[in-house]
């Protein structure tokens, strides 16, 4: 019980600190949110009216306290850019990112972990070299370039997948939004045609993100595994005559699970922040471009709301990995 309370308290403090920093940065930014609303040629009266209606004429401390009070009541205010409540905006853009990031991470884990293990076991072999090249490309290629190339080849030339956007224009708004994630909503509505279309749209950007996360995960897996494989207990196991499969998967891999969880959680959290460039190239209305747009226009309610969500994601993933540690590592229990 005490532990739960402690965790909750630490979440609250983290979030408050995050909000405070974001809020202050937002206020000292050299962008005038009022000017971005009223335009250059506005009269002073219009400017002042807009400024007052945004509450910007009050002292900054008061502004912050008002903001915190509202957030506690679930009110993130209105976005200047979209003219809607920030909460509603986030409920629209975050599921889009969640869907993409989850699929991307799944691809990254399913391919990256085995690749990393095999590369470590057959160190220096052709498969290790391939894994290295794959990872190197993943690290160094600009994502927009790979994205454009992917679109060009698989959408433009081969026609295997659909182009930018979440679904085709005929499939927009057909399934009722329950989770906001079209893949899940179309399954709930048992509309297989929409599902199929949504898959053909998401598969390319998800593979792209999956590729980047695979590059990272496979490299990390490889180095964790190498460390284990050079340990004495592995030699002992081998000397004992255990089958190589057991040595690798039960002994060595069993010991890197905890480290891997951290790596995967971090990479997942990164994708959940929204990959702005991927979103732009694939016209994917996710939280990354939402926050970026908001930031560029000094739409502080939206920036703060988005920051809270991203912050929460990190905190929750942290807790989740903690729980998983306990599951996989008897010492942590």
């Amino acid at each position: 019980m005490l532990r739960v309370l402690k965790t909750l308290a630490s979440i609250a403090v983290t979030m408050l600190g995050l909000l405070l920093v974001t809020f202050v940065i937002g206020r000292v930014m050299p962008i005038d949110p009022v000017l971005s609303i009223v335009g250059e040629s506005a009269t002073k009266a219009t400017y002042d009216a807009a400024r007052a209606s945004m509450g910007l004429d009050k002292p900054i401390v008061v502004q912050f306290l008002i903001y915190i009070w509202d957030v506690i009541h679930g009110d993130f205010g209105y976005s200047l850019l979209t003219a809607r409540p920030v909460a509603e905006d986030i409920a629209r853009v975050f599921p889009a990112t969640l869907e993409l990031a989850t699929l991307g991470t799944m691809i990254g884990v399913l391919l990256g972990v085995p690749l990393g293990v095999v590369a470590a076991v057959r160190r220096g072999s052709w498969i290790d070299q391939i894994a290295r090249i794959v990872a190197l490309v993943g690290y160094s290629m600009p994502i927009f370039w790979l994205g454009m190339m992917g679109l060009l080849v698989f959408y433009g030339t081969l026609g295997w997948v659909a182009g930018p956007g979440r679904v085709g224009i005929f499939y927009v708004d057909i399934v009722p939004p329950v989770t906001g994630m079209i893949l899940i909503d179309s399954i709930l509505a048992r509309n297989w045609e929409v599902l199929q279309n949504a898959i053909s749209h998401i598969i390319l950007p998800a593979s792209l993100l999956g590729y980047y996360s695979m590059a990272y995960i496979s490299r990390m897996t490889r180095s964790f595994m190498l460390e284990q494989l050079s340990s004495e207990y592995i030699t002992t196991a081998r000397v004992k005559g255990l089958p190589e499969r057991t040595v690798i998967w039960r002994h060595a891999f069993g010991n890197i699970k905890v480290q891997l969880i951290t790596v995967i959680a971090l990479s997942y959290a990164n994708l959940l922040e929204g990959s702005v460039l991927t979103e732009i190239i694939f016209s994917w209305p996710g939280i990354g471009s939402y926050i970026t747009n908001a930031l560029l226009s000094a739409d502080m309610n939206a920036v703060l709301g988005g920051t809270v969500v991203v912050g929460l994601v990190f905190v929750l993933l942290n807790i989740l990995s903690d729980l998983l540690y306990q599951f996989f590592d008897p010492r942590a229990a």
Partner: protein
Amino acid sequence: MRPFSNLLASVALGLAVGVTGLPAFAETPANMLVIANRIDDITTLDPAESFEFAGGDVSRNIYGKLVNFDPMNLDAGYGPDLAASWTVSEDGKTITFTMRDGVKFQSGNPVTAKDAEFSLRRAIILNKTPSFILTQFGFTPENVDKTIVAKGNTLSITTDKKFATSFVLNSLTATIGGIVDMKEVMAHEVDGDMGNAWLKTHTAGSGAYTLVSWKPNESVTLQANPNFYLGAPAMKRVIVRHVQESASQRLLLEKGDIDVARNLNPEDVKGITGEKGIAIDSELRGRIMYISLNQKHPILSKPEVRTAIKYLIDYKGMQDSFLNGQYTIHQNFLPATFLGAIDDAPYSLNVAKAKELLAKAGVGNFEITAGVREAQERLEIAQSLQNTFAQAGIKLNLTVGTGKQILSKYRARELDMYIGAWGPDYPDPQTNAGTFAYNPDNSDAAKATGLLAWRNSWDTGGLTQQVEAAVVEGDRAKRAKMYEDMQREFLKISPFGIMFQKIEQTGRRDNVKNLNLGGAITAVSYWPVTK
């Protein structure tokens, strides 16, 4: 995305297309128009508040106005729309509109003079950003119940002094002149906001289209209004998809998944020019690029120096290199397609002539500092100017900053020179004449920060009176002539070096016909479009 990565993406795409070739197989339905555009600037759809390009595009197709531009003949200027006709009182202050009979809002309510009265009063009372377009005629929240009055099927508006009728009517064609459905709007009023919160994301008009949905950064979907008084539009549905990247727009267009791509960069335009099934349209927009010289500066205020500097700009070089396809040479303060616009372009790069003028003014080598905001094309222009100025012994230093930083210095009259852009606020010549060539009080105390002439401490050499005369000239043709004369004088004497006018290049499938983007004076029109 950074301009550099834009460029890389386009080059990569161009290379790859060249190697692989692209089969086109998809096609949008015959009664549907699908457009890719950047629509992230839409912040509201309320015509009393909307003041951005993409918002204007939506509004123009949803709201009728008292007077409007015919998309098939923009050069004709304003003509009747919801007002079938109008008369002007003898003192020139009151315009009485007779409403068109039988027009209905999309809700089914009839369009009446009461709705028009409500819409204009509402715009003035709400006092949002674009309200100055109407309040410049002396309307105030306090006097609207006397100055904007419906009677039967007529609406009278009375300005505080005599204005050119064309000035008033041109201003009413702006987005803010949209006539909203009073009953529908007031049914959604919250806390006395006259329906503002609701109208930000909903619509209540009588135009060719109704709004199905606006999803920020995602799409705007419009449905044809079968009862549109000019006849039901051929395109039953118009979908504007937010596609940020030029290269993505290009791919979608080549594949036939969209009919129109509105934000193609020059590299992508080049790449698809001549491709089968695709046509490229170039459209002039209202934005103007200029430099200006602060007249407080002892050297820059000499007439010969002002002229010399206009000869030190490599107009053609810039137009044909980095501005290719995005800007065209234009040296007058009224954008082409505006009433009274002229296309005189007497200046070109002529270093010898500039040197001669500088010698005549008795100035040797000197140094000035120009403010320029951190935007790629402006910086490139600034660098070109540094180069050409240097050839005549002028060292040009640059102060680079954010829009706000540079603008606040400009407004405080602190810059020697400014390199920047200006876009018209409403489709009447006064919008630019009233800022470039108008400055009734040139003292620092006047603080007329909204006037470009004041920002450069220029007393306008008599043009102020001409601007004042033009806004009250009732005859449209005579008024146009006045602006022409004004601009010729301005070319000679002003401290402004106007350089370019914006061009927008649009790619479309060549089966799309009659798509008019609105030029420099209005927004896009979907209702005449056929496929």
